[in-house]
Every structure is written in structure tokens, then in C-alpha cells.
């Protein structure tokens, strides 16, 4: 029998190791698996490389993980937003590394990593400071830079509904990086707002096929990140 659902967040993240590469879904708070991130903070792994579009807001979620000095390096397209306090400070003090990647290149590097493609060429960043150090090549008279696929040890992903095989559907723009991150990790850990029975998800509408998912935890009422940030909550709760 296949049942990828686990009873607790702690079990879902228990084998993340110091030095692991961890992808975290989300564009801002939309699609950010905040309960899984908090479980990872509790678990204690450090020296992590985190692949995520942003660096979190306030002192919860990714921002709290960074604040607890668990992250050695961020691979990221937009590390500062209105409410990002933690990352800019650590970055200014030279306490965290940043690999800045254009957003579409980041997405494609994750997609390629999951698809078994080690590298590809893209026109994005040609003629800009972000082309530095990259192999260049011309195709049909246009210049491209070579970018490497990214693979992770773990992906932490939030979705709307899952079945026990790991088939997933998402909600609106919270889908963002989830589907590609599911494909690119050795172990993909999902928090689902709802578990569906087998057959309860329309096979034509499944976004992430279950083969890409290893573990699922059901979180019916995920925390509202922007509310926590506006009320200045800090994880772990004091």
C-alpha cells in the first residue's frame, strides 16, 4: 500500500541534515509552507542552502529560519521586500551568502534540475552584470549564457489538496514554484490544506503527479503570514 501522508510535521522533516540544499515554494507568502519551515527550525539543521524566490517577511517563516542562523546561502531572485528585515541585515554584515538569479532563470534552473537537464542556454542577463563568469555562446546570431540546473536534497511545498499517492492541486497564484520544486528534490515534503480520497482529484486537473512527492502532512488551517508579520509575531512563539 502506498500512503505518503505522515501524522506530524516533525516526522516529515526529521532527516534534513546540516548542509542540505532545501527548496522552499512560495512567492512572498503565497504558497510559502510556513508550518514546514517552522518544523525545520524546531528540527535544528543548519548550514543550509535555501532556494526560494524571496527571503521572507518579519520574523516568521523563511525570515525566522534565516534569523536563527540556519542558512549559509540563499539562491534567490528578490531578496528584499517591504517587510524583509532579517536578510538585509545579515547580508550587510557579511553573515549570509547570496546567489542572485533572475526569476525566470531561477524557475528554469529548478525545472531543468527536476528534468535531468544539467545546463541550458538563456538570453536572460546577457549584457548585464549578472552574466559575469558565465559561459557564453551564440545561436542564430544571438548571445546566450549557460545556466546550470539546480537539484535539492529536500523541497518544502504548500498545496491546496493532495491524495495519498501524492497527486497535488494548488490554489491560484500560490502555485508559483511548487510544481517545479516537487520535481527537483530527492525528497519532496508537502503540506496540504486538505487530503482527498483516491479519485477525489480529477486526473485531468492534477498539477503535480504523485511520483514527484514523497511525504505529505495535512495542515487544514495554515497560518496567515502577513497577519503574523503585521502583528510582529516571532517564531518560535515567545
Amino acid at each position, binding site marked *: 500500500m502506498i500512503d505518503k501522508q505522515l501524522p506530524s510535521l516533525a516526522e516529515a522533516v526529521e532527516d534534513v541534515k546540516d548542509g542540505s540544499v532545501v527548496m522552499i515554494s512560495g512567492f512572498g507568502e503565497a504558497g510559502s509552507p510556513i508550518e514546514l519551515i517552522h518544523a525545520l527550525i524546531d528540527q535544528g539543521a543548519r548550514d543550509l542552502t535555501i532556494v526560494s524566490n524571496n527571503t521572507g517577511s518579519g520574523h516568521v517563516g523563511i525570515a525566522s529560519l534565516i534569523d536563527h542562523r540556519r542558512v549559509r546561502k540563499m539562491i534567490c531572485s528578490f531578496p528584499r521586500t517591504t517587510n524583509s528585515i532579517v536578510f538585509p541585515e545579515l547580508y*550587510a554584515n557579511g553573515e549570509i551568502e547570496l546567489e542572485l538569479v533572475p526569476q525566470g532563470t531561477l524557475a528554469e534552473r529548478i525545472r531543468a534540475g527536476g528534468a535531468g537537464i544539467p545546463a541550458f542556454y538563456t538570453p*536572460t542577463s546577457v549584457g548585464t552584470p549578472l552574466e559575469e563568469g558565465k559561459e557564453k555562446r551564440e545561436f542564430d546570431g544571438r548571445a546566450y549564457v549557460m545556466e546550470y540546473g539546480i537539484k535539492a536534497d529536500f523541497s518544502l511545498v504548500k498545496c491546496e489538496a493532495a491524495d495519498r499517492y501524492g497527486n497535488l492541486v494548488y490554489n491560484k497564484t500560490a502555485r508559483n514554484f511548487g510544481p517545479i520544486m516537487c520535481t527537483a528534490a530527492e525528497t519532496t515534503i508537502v503540506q496540504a490544506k486538505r487530503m482527498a480520497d483516491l479519485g477525489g482529484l480529477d486526473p485531468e486537473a492534477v498539477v503535480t503527479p504523485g511520483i514527484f512527492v514523497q511525504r505529505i502532512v495535512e495542515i487544514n488551517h495554515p497560518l496567515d503570514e502577513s497577519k503574523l508579520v503585521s502583528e510582529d509575531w516571532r517564531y518560535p512563539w515567545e
Partner: protein
Amino acid sequence: MGVNKNKAGWTKEEMAHHVAVDIPDGAYVNLGIGMPELVAGFVPEGREVIYHTENGLLGMGPEPQEGQEDPELINAGKKYVTAIQGACYFHHAESFTMIRGRHIDICVLGAYEVSEAGDLANWSTGKPGAVPAVGGAMDLVAGVRNIFVITKHVTKQGNPKIVENCQLPLTGKGVVKRIYTNLATLEVTPEGLVVKEMAKGIGFDELQEHTEAQLKMPSQ
């Protein structure tokens, strides 16, 4: 210099209107954060334009009414939006397939500097120590055929933003097609910057005075 600053010429809304009338019926359009967002409000009636937001929505609608905000329905600027009837959602790699794969017709962006060759600088102020953040800007300019820039003609300090060569870090080289400012609409051509229209009360000499790059009138 500096007499004009940003006071004379077109308002932000008039600038947005100029961009909007150049968007044809049926276009797929990506609007950058800030002033470009105003453009959606001025598309002439009868034209159906589909807005793409790179975080994964085609068919973005206006802001939601108060109380209807959904934290899982946002745009690239992380603001609450709505989805129109006929909208669809997709993941990031697919979203940037639309961008990089030349499927989006027009992208409207803001600028720190634009050069006469159509180079664009709009992602980094180049200040040492600042946290660099690029987002999707470089993918958009590399992938969308028609890059329209909407910007004040000069900076707050009165310095030209339309320059011979950009001094700030580039977003892309030779990518801008048209520049819509509060003083004029300019076309980037192989022969240089051609003035398409000037705001009422602005003469060519005055426009040139506020522009570092050499301008041309269409007849020249």
C-alpha cells in the same frame, strides 16, 4: 536646466493613456510594478487585452473590493488582485516560458535610465552595500519583443534619464522600443531616438535640453 522639472507636460495618467492607446486589441501584456500598473485603466473601450503577471496568472483583473482580498491571489508586486472570467493559473517555469519564449506581446516597465540604443537600467541603483534584487526584469526584457518604458523625463534632481550611455547596471542591452515620458513619446530606432509626440507647450529645443541623448524629429 531644471526649469521644467516634472511639473510641465503630461500627468502620470496622461502618460499611461499614451501607452494604453498603443496597445492593440487582443494583446497579451505584462505591466511592471508602479507607474506601468496605471496603463490598464486607460485601454480604449472595445479592446480586449489580457494581462499576464509573472507569478502565475494570465487574465489578471483589477484590485479586489475591500474584504475580498485573497493572500493567494496576488500580482508580481505582491499586491492583491482579481482574476477575470477566462483566467488561468500556472507555475513559474510555464510563466517564464510565456515571457522568454516570445509569447507576451508587450511589456511596460519603469526605468532609472534608458540609452539612445535602447539599453535599460531599472533594477539596481548601483549603491554599494544595497541588497541586490532583480526579480523578473531581466527575463522580461530578454523575452518580450515590445518593451515600452514609462518614466518621468528627468530625475527628481532634474538630471536626464534618457542618456547616451547608461551609468547604472543594465537590465538588458538594446531592448527598449518606445519611451513614454511626461514631456514626449520617443521611438528607439536604428538611427537613434525619434520624437513621436511632444507635450503641449514643449518645444524641441527644450526637450533636447532635458535629454542627454541626441533626439531627432521624424522628418530629419
